[in-house]
């Protein structure tokens, strides 16, 4: 570690290039090395619509403390080239006082960079790489950044060696040579942003994406079956599950479309196996009819919706929180069900597991609203605690009496038999039915079963998992899901400025945790509702169901640009000043 006096608790850098140049690999290597050295951090990638040849950037933040969200600007920006830079550079502004390292061969930096209050340094990255037989620009960039933030060769090469093991020692050596070339080239560059020493972690850190975490969480919850139709940005959930389910005795089936994938998990769950699928908005739209079937037939399933920018096919690679409406209200008829949302990349693990617990306990569909900003972020986190729910479907036990699959019970949950159990035979039905499951057009049957399906959710004990209520003060920042991290940073910053604000954020989106939320909002003087939806879906959802405090403001907009801590801080500051 660098030992200058001017050490940083946080440093952010971006490596930009074209698809195929390996910018994202470079960022990943640095993140992993930092994790081994005890840092926290996260990596977002920004990619254009082109698979190869389009822009690709790794945005990395490293920190001595847990990092909740990406920083809004970057201390260091390394440009392997500037192709299409105008299209995306706005999303990765250079911080005041920052440094930009650019290959002069790649042409002039874009306007936004030239205009920024930063130092621009030229470095012939391409040439350096070409001079090394088999050399690649991205490892040069790793060397450059390492030098500027104070990572050393051993830290980096441990990761590189592990990654390239299969390619043999020669490849590793080339990597080392490139690293050194970059490291050397940067000796004279200034400013530098040396990181302070990291605290030694108690246990090994985890490096994980939200998409992996939600998949693992679902498996922790007992999922052993999945059916998949690929869609950005949810595909990695499915690609995580495919080999790992197989390892644990389960199976994933690639389906022909989302109509099939949702149907398949319904079939598997009818057979007794906790089951999950993952998709994004367009796929969720196609699943709505069968989600209604799961609700009506009381078949537990979990659907993970990794939200992207909408409407319609929108922007596949960017984030928004605008599937709340369809997830909560997108059913024909009245179909009570549960919608929850992870509050961070790490929380995807818990939320994935909790989703299965709720679905299995209630025999109902649960929709998990993750989004691109956490699903595709890779973070360094402390190993998440083991949580074990007493998840079990209420089982049918043959007591010699006639079995009524949809029997009315005190808690609204009817014992569910599984194929293979003698005496438990029944036909699950999505038509209006009576206790036995037989289709009916009788008012009493309809009312009885509707009430039952509503009741089981109303009576369910969601525990204290409804969300978080952090900090103190009578200003409340009320948000949900992935924006929790930005809001958390905002209250820290505000506290530093002497403004006490609280963070209230919902993991339990629907049904709304009325009691907990009312408690959390009780006495609040000002409530700022923060969400990534142009129409304010979250705010409208809340007010449709409960009385809201009087003094409310909204900070909300469409994607792709994610609401940052600074914007939240600015709003609160303004409001406080008035």
């Amino acid at each position: 570690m660098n030992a200058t006096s001017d050490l940083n608790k946080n440093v952010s850098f971006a490596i930009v290039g074209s698809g195929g140049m390996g910018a994202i690999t470079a960022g990943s290597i640095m993140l992993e090395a930092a994790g081994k050295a005890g840092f926290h951090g996260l990596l977002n990638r920004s990619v254009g619509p082109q698979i190869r040849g389009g822009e690709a950037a790794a945005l990395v933040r490293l920190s001595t403390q847990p990092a909740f969200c990406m920083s809004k600007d970057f201390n260091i920006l390394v440009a392997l080239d500037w192709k299409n830079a105008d299209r995306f550079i706005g999303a990765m502004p250079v911080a005041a006082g920052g440094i930009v390292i650019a290959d002069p061969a790649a042409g002039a930096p874009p306007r936004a960079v030239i205009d920024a209050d930063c130092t621009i340094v030229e470095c012939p990255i391409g040439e350096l790489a070409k001079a090394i037989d088999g050399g690649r620009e991205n490892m040069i960039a790793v060397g450059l950044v390492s030098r500027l933030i104070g990572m050393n060769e051993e830290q980096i090469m441990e990761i590189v060696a592990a990654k390239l093991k299969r390619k043999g020692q020669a490849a590793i050596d080339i990597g080392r040579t490139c690293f050194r070339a970059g490291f050397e080239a940067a000796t004279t560059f200034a400013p530098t942003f040396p990181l302070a020493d990291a605290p030694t972690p108690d246990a090994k850190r985890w490096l994980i994406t939200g998409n992996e975490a939600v998949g693992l969480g679902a498996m922790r919850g007992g999922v052993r079956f999945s059916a998949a139709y690929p869609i950005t940005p949810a595909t990695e959930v499915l690609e995580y599950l495919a080999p790992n389910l197989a390892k644990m005795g389960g199976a994933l089936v690639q389906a022909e479309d989302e109509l099939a994938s949702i149907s398949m998990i319904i079939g598997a769950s009818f057979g007794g196996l906790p089951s999950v699928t993952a998709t994004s908005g367009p796929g969720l739209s196609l699943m709505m009819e069968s989600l209604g079937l799961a609700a009506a037939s009381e078949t537990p399933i979990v659907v993970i919706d990794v939200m992207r920018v909408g409407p319609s096919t929108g922007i596949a690679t960017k984030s928004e929180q605008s599937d709340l409406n369809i997830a909560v209200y997108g059913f024909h008829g009245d179909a009570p069900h549960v919608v929850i949302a992870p509050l961070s990349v790490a929380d995807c693990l818990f939320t994935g597991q909790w989703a299965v617990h709720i679905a299995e306990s209630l025999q109902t569909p649960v929709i998990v609203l993750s989004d691109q900003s956490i699903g595709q972020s890779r973070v360094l986190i402390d190993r998440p605690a083991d949580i074990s729910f007493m998840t079990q479907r209420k089982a049918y036990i043959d007591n010699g009496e006639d079995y009524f699959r949809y029997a009315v019970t005190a808690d609204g949950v009817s014992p569910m038999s599984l194929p293979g159990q003698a005496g438990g035979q029944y036909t699950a039905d999505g038509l209006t039915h009576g206790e036995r499951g037989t289709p009916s057009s009788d008012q009493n049957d309809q009312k009885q079963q509707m009430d039952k399906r509503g009741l089981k959710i109303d009576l369910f004990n969601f525990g204290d998992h409804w969300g978080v209520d952090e900090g103190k003060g009578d200003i409340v920042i009320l948000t949900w899901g992935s924006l929790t991290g930005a809001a958390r940073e905002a209250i820290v910053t505000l506290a530093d400025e002497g403004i006490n604000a609280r963070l209230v954020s919902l993991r339990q989106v629907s049904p709304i945790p009325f009691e907990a939320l009312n408690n959390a909002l009780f006495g609040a003087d000002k409530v700022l509702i923060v969400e990534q939806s142009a129409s304010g879906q979250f705010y409208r959802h809340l007010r449709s169901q409960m009385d809201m405090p009087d003094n409310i403001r909204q900070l909300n907009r469409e994607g792709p640009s994610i609401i940052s801590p600074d914007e939240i801080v600015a709003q609160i500051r303004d409001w406080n000043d008035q």
Partner: protein
Amino acid sequence: MNAPAKMKASDFKSDLTPIWCPGCGDFHVLMSITRALAKLGRPPEEVAAISGIGCSSRIPAYTNCYGFHGVHGRSLAVAAGLKVARPDLTVLALSGDGDGFSIGGNHFLHACRRNVDMTYIVMDNRVYGMTKGQPSPTTEPDWDSALTPGGTGMNPFHPLVIALASGANFVAREFSGDIKACTATIQEAIEHPGFSFVEILSPCVTFRPDEKEWKNQVHNAQVEATDDPARAARRIMTDDGMNTGVLYRGSRKPFKASVKDSIGDLSTLEAAFEV
């Protein structure tokens, strides 16, 4: 599948009275299915019958098996999920020509291709019965209806050829009125590995009274079932649609993925995330 126990068709019938029109062909299909299951000899609780929506799709609740009466057109996907998750069960998907070939056509293609070990029985009455008489993909081009005055003008769909071309492993056509043949074919279809498809011509006496004539029109295929899909396809493409019998017995490998004994300890998965 174990050796046939002493089971009766009635062991597979539920106590519900079917709501079909008197004379509907589906009554016979129900009889054939329950008889075939009795011959098969697995207890009813080890059989699952999955359907969509339509008159024909009402059938699961009339059996004493586990049943799933889902939404329109998705029976095959529900059944595939169930079978992969529960390879120990005997899984039947039951459908109509509208449910199976119109809205459900894509799942049909891909179920054949996927070749999961299950049996698909389509009660083909060449009409949408439940919605009161619209043409289905198997309806003749000149059949008049309120929705398609003067007929669709479209060639009917060849379910058996599509099944073959997409990779079904067993293909047969029967007539509902011939309960003996239906029973035998259904039993064989269930016992045949992989995806078995049985199209049963099952008259809709209400909206297609002309189909009461089917009993005089069907005739047993004069040929032996082949194991060459190209040959079988060509044969079926040129037949009159009234040929009955087993038309193809394949030997393609059934779908490989299936759930095994679940491992509860995920520590190896978790270790993969450690840095």
